[in-house]
């Protein structure tokens, strides 16, 4: 990580090109979402490339080969641990969807504007 971590020597560069950024879909949020999806795809690809490097180095040093990976059999404990990790991953990714239902399920839920009004009101309850 040292190569990409920020330190005091880092010079902040302009990251936005001067000039109006065009959007293409009728809702520009779709463009923004697509841009974020491609950034995630990029980071996924970077991770996969790193794994590929690890595998190639391992093979070149006779540590293990690609075939060892392909034929490796996970035991029940390992499968269970992996499945649990998948669930955490899905929970994080779909959090915005689940939280909407969680909110609906809540017995009583004040309107947020009413909450603001409540805390801003000096004559109100404390």
């Amino acid at each position, binding site marked *: 990580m040292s*190569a*990409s971590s*920020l330190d005091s*020597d*880092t*010079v*902040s*560069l*302009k*990251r*936005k*090109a*001067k*000039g109006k*950024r*065009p*959007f*293409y*879909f009728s809702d520009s949020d*779709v*463009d923004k979402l*697509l*841009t974020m999806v*491609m*950034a995630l*795809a*990029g*980071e996924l*690809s*970077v991770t996969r*490339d*790193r794994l590929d*490097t690890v595998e190639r180095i391992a093979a070149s040093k006779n540590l293990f080969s690609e075939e060892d990976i392909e034929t490796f059999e996970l035991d029940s404990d390992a499968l269970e641990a992996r499945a649990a990790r998948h669930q955490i991953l899905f929970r994080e990714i779909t959090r915005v969807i689940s939280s909407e239902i969680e909110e609906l399920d809540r017995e009583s839920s004040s309107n947020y504007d009413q909450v603001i009004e409540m805390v801003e009101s000096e004559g109100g309850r404390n």
Partner: protein
Amino acid sequence: MSGSYVEQNHHDALPKTSHDECARQHFVRSFKEHLVTSIHPGLKTAYEKRAKISFQKQHGRDPSDIKDVASVMKHDPHYQAWSSLLRTSQEMMWSAAQIPVERSLRELAASAAKSEGGQGTLRLNGDLKIPDYHTAVDIHCQPGGYHTEYIADDVAQGAIYDRAVYLYAMGQMGPDNADMGDSTVSWLQSQQPDFKPQRILDMGCSVGHSTLPYVTGFPEAEVHGIDVGAPMLRYAHARAKSKDLEVHFSQQNAEKTDFEDESFDLVVSHILLHETSAAAIKNVIKECHRLLKPGGWMVHVETPPYEGMSPFDTFLFDWDSENNNEPFWRRSHELDLQALAEQGGFTEHPTIQVMAPSAFQETQRSMTFQGGDFGGGGVWFLYGCQK
């Protein structure tokens, strides 16, 4: 494995990347390749099977110009997706090239300042006014354009640009991004075998990737490169030195240089003209005429004019005008180039306007120009004239 993947050649000035930084850059290259080979072809289908039919229904005729095509294509979901992804790929390209530079800029600047090798020189002019057509928007969306400086002896914009050109062309300009220069040298040598330039000027040379082919192609010549961007020139100077090649770089505007009348045999530029303005392009041609000795040549490498292209092809090729911060792209592709040369004083000979084959032939060539596939066509448009 064929081993045909073209990676950029290393040189001392090029920013070093970590494993992941490099992987991120290669992802952008692959992303662009995917857009060219898998998404771009669908635009023709979307146009023929959907957008064009919609236009015909509305107007009772075929689309006849770029505005007609735009009126329906801008609402086509495939065009919207392609545009959105292409714009994103451009932004990701700059970002991926910036990350290692942001981390190592001080080191890069210090190293460039003490670079050794070759007999080249660097002459900067801090008082030079950066033209409005450079500062109005950041050309082709490079944040900070060609000119922004962050620290003393800055090379950031050049260091970013060198890597981005490789990614933008997807390696199709060769491992040194030299194809525009190489192809022009090859064309000159095959078409004008007796032409032996002694003094050569490359206008708008940026990092000198197109300049160096003239040093190797005409070893007896003294080669100069000018640009308005100081960080480009500092980097270009270090880059040339690392390759032990002699170029004399100076910070000047191609519209008006400080070189003497009739002091060059060959004046060239590479995708410079479309990054100027209607007024500036005339000045540049005039300046070429002033600088050339009688019998000398000016040659500008560009993408081809719109004339003769179908409305649909023109619409796609015009994408950069409004979507990639290339405000002069459209007008520059519609100019009467013969008249432009004559206005600039080139009345001695007719202009040449030719498609010259690429000198770098390792990759598949479409022999056409299409948006998002820079350098992939296998041909360059040369515009020039002999004085």
